[in-house]
């Protein structure tokens, strides 16, 4: 198990990460979602020891990765582009990875290269953007690390490559003992892939859901009252949208009174709507639905 224990990161008196706390179980996909600049990348970079946290620790099987960096055999960080290796040839990269990661599986690497029809090249700058993204993932999974951290893995890729990548990720998790932590500002892609979603806002975890329970925790309804919305209702709900007298609301299911209060005012219309992660995103993180 990988544990992110109360990570706080302060840079120049500005708090970038604030008391981030969660666990990553093996075989899970965890989505880290939030608007741009909210600290997602900082979090991932801290989880692999690139950045040192101001407070807190990252543990793998009860050992701190900062005190025992050898534990990072089990963590791979895949940045949004493999820029660090751009002058390297495919074979040089295999050599250096084999030297770095004990469990690097050369056969598996070439098998995947073949499967995605990636040629070996003299310099990986010769790859197209989509190929680079695929290549980074193939490398990461070939190390047989248990925790793979992906920073916006599908950002700016075309639909076909994007689908290839997402399928690949799912297969890897389905196959065995690997967990994926994936950051994205694209909710629609992550929504059904993840076991858990971590919603970040201003460097903190705003919410942490398990996918299965997420939709049972909240309810989206459309309500129309005779007149304006009564003040006591406002206290119990989040208003997603208002068009004239028609309100779209998100109701927290743990608030048992909420629906009763609405019913007391005898709404003209009370209709449950399908709820998506995006609705929650907007409610929780505020602002409009433009999350990119």
């Amino acid at each position: 198990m990988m544990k992110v224990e109360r990570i706080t990161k302060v840079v120049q008196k500005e708090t970038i990460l604030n008391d981030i706390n969660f666990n990553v179980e093996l075989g899970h996909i965890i989505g880290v979602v939030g608007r741009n600049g909210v600290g997602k990348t900082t979090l991932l970079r801290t989880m692999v020891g690139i950045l040192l946290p101001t407070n807190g620790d990252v543990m793998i099987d009860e050992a701190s990765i900062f005190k025992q960096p050898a534990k990072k055999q089990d963590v791979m960080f895949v940045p949004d582009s493999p820029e660090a290796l751009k002058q390297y040839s495919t074979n040089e990269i295999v050599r250096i990875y084999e030297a770095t990661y004990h469990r690097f599986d050369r056969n598996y690497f070439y098998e995947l290269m073949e499967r995605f029809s990636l040629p070996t090249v003299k310099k990986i700058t010769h790859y197209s953007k989509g190929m680079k993204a695929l290549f980074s993932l193939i490398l990461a999974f070939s190390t047989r690390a248990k925790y793979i951290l992906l920073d916006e893995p599908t950002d700016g890729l075309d639909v076909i490559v994007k689908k290839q990548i997402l399928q690949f990720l799912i297969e890897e998790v389905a196959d065995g003992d690997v967990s994926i932590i994936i950051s994205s500002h694209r909710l629609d892609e992550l929504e059904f892939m993840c076991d858990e979603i971590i919603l970040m806002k201003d460097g903190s975890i705003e919410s942490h859901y398990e996918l299965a329970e997420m939709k049972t925790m909240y309810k989206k309804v459309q309500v129309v009252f005779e007149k304006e919305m009564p003040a006591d209702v406002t206290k119990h709900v989040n208003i997603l949208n208002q068009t004239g007298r028609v309100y779209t609301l998100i109701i927290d299911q743990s608030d048992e009174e909420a629906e009763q209060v609405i019913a007391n005012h005898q709404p003209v219309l009370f209709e449950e709507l399908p709820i998506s992660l995006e609705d929650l995103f907007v409610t929780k993180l505020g602002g409009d639905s433009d999350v990119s």
Partner: protein
Amino acid sequence: MFHKALWLWNWKQTRIMLGIMFVVLFMSFPFYALVSMEGWRDRIERIDRYTIADITARDIYNVFVNPGSGVFMVFVLVILAGMMIGLERNTRKHDFLLSWPFHRRDIFFSKWLMGTLAIITFFVFNVGLAYIIVSNSEFAPILNDIQMTSDLIVRLIGFILFFTFALLIGTIAGEMISQVILTLIFSVLPFGLIILIDEGLRIHTSTTTSNLINYYEWISYITLPYYMVLERPYQSDLSMYEPFILETFIVITGTVIFLILGMFLYERNKVEHNGEFLIFKLLQPVLNTGIVVCFGLLGGMFIRSFIPFQLSNGSLFGIFLYWIGFNLFAFFAYLLVRRLQRMNITLKSKT
């Protein structure tokens, strides 16, 4: 501590610079020996046959111990260290390296070790080659009269000291250019500063001789490039001259201190400041003050140099000019410092 992956990485990162270092040392020793010998032969031929004694031990000594190679090596080593740390900070390579399952201090140590081994190997090889060339020539009899081992040792460990220092500066500088500049400034700072202060004092008093001249020798010992360019008046009978022990002691102690300090600071590396002028922000005010004051002293000296100092030492006009220069330069340095504080040089990919 010795990870193969780090060797592969460092080699790929620095092999061009290592190649240049080899070439520089090759030019400085074997090549220079060949060229010098050609010159001597020319000289002998032009006079007459039996003046071989004209070529003295001093000439041979100078082939091996001269400031030329040292000056080149200052630049080679500072750029080598810059490529090892500063350049990685400019690109995403540093991120990549730190995500590896190694202690940061091991990463730093591997860089140091690779540079140091390259310096030793290339130096010994090229000096040895030059020695073989000379000893197989008609000048071999003179070669046997010379004691230069101790000077060569000081030079070799002087290179290592300077390289270690440049790596150390890499742990506090945010990127390559600032690492190179800060290394060069700090390495000559003790000597530079004493000259600036000395000049300042002289202008305010009526003396024409240096007030601090007694300290010059002592200051040399803590000015790093000194060991790379030192040259002694040659005395053939002095097999082990006195300063050797002291110099070796200072250089080795310095290297060890810089190496340990570098490993310590690299371990606390604040990657979030990569691309900025300094990594450790606590040093910023100190550095700012230092830059402003030094530029002030330099400016004072510079403006003041427009009038002959014999006429004006201690004169009000001289002092007045000095302070105008001081303030002018300090002001510009202040603007520069503010600019440096905001800079961020990070190369992003084009795609």
